[in-house]
């Protein structure tokens, strides 16, 4: 598992860690029930403070991506992949809705909007 930390990023380090672990879980690189490194060993390997890794794990736990058992460590939580995908689809739908509303306000045609969407989809 790769975790790359940037010190110059505006994103706090705990967030960078949480996001990357989340991605690993989504892409299946970290499987269900797989143990995660302890907060202390992860802090050592990333050369950052224990409090930072702890906060990343707390965040992941709050969002249901991992579970922590006292004295045993943290594991990748049983993920409902279907549910994860659904929630991501919902986010995309909401953003699209916003884009449509903005387009209508600017009198952009559906065709023009499709053009834009196509461009961004291929560029992103």
């Amino acid at each position, binding site marked *: 598992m790769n975790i790359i930390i940037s010190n110059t990023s*505006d994103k*706090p380090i705990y967030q960078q860690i949480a996001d990357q672990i989340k991605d690993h879980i989504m892409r299946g690189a970290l499987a269900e029930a797989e143990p995660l490194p302890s907060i202390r*060993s992860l802090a050592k390997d990333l050369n950052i*403070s224990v*409090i930072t890794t702890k906060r990343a794990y707390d965040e992941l736990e709050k969002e249901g991506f991992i579970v922590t058992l006292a004295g045993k460590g943290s594991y990748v939580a049983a993920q409902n992949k279907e549910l994860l995908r659904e929630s991501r689809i919902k986010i995309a739908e909401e953003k699209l809705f916003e884009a449509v509303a903005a387009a209508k306000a600017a009198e952009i045609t559906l065709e023009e909007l499709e053009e834009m969407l196509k461009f961004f989809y291929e560029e992103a």
Partner: protein
Amino acid sequence: MENILEIRNLTKTFQGFTLNNISFSLPKGFITGFIGPNGSGKTTTIKLIMNLLRKDEGEISIFGLDHIKHESEVKNRIGFVYDENHYYEELTAEQMKRFVASAYNNWDEEKFTSFARKFGLPLNKKIKDLSRGMKVKFSLAIALSHDADLLIMDEPTSGLDPVIRSEILDILHDVIQDENKGVFFSTHITSDLDRIADYIIMIYKGEILFNKTKDELIEEHAIIKGPLSLLDTSLKNSLIGIKKGKYGFEAMAASREAADALVKAGATAEKPALEDIMLFYTRKENGNA
């Protein structure tokens, strides 16, 4: 959370300097950085903890025990690295080590040998012939070889090259793999702490300015740069250590809200390093605002 070290209302007065009624505690399992410019009271505080100086007032307890009443027990469990040499100059490192080892209950000769090898310590040389870096490494090897529960280090990295410094920081991480141990690390080279410190205590002119997690400190502070006209508004009140230049000002905002308001008004905000925070807080005291 259990505290490995607790200091309450500690006071010590010298001519021209007072360590003024300071209180703080160290939770176990973490690395705490003790920062402040030279002459702020870092070494005085550490000497008082180690009972190398007599306190005027206050309480110090280590592992829940009074540091004077239980001095020998407490010291057995502390690894101490001090920036001045406190060994006998005429002994060789090997002789000195044997002498010191006999004082500890949990001396681990194997561990010492492995650190001595790792640090490249010339054990047959006299202490007085060791370079400053070697003396620090020698004292660190000793501090790490008796299974100490608390490492107290006064400026351990000053005068050491970056390679050794980074090795030492690695070793500190090793120490706190055991969540019952703690590290208290004084330094004015704050870049050593930017990454690894969990808590930061800043002392200035004998008083504690703040005691927070490093992440909180970095997140709530921002370096602000902006046009001089902003200083004529009420936004000025949220700035610390303002430095005016010909083309604009530079200062520090101590909260997210203040930084956001300043950015809205046309300033830029940057993430600070610990050194910036130390600098701006002490600049305020210099009366440049």
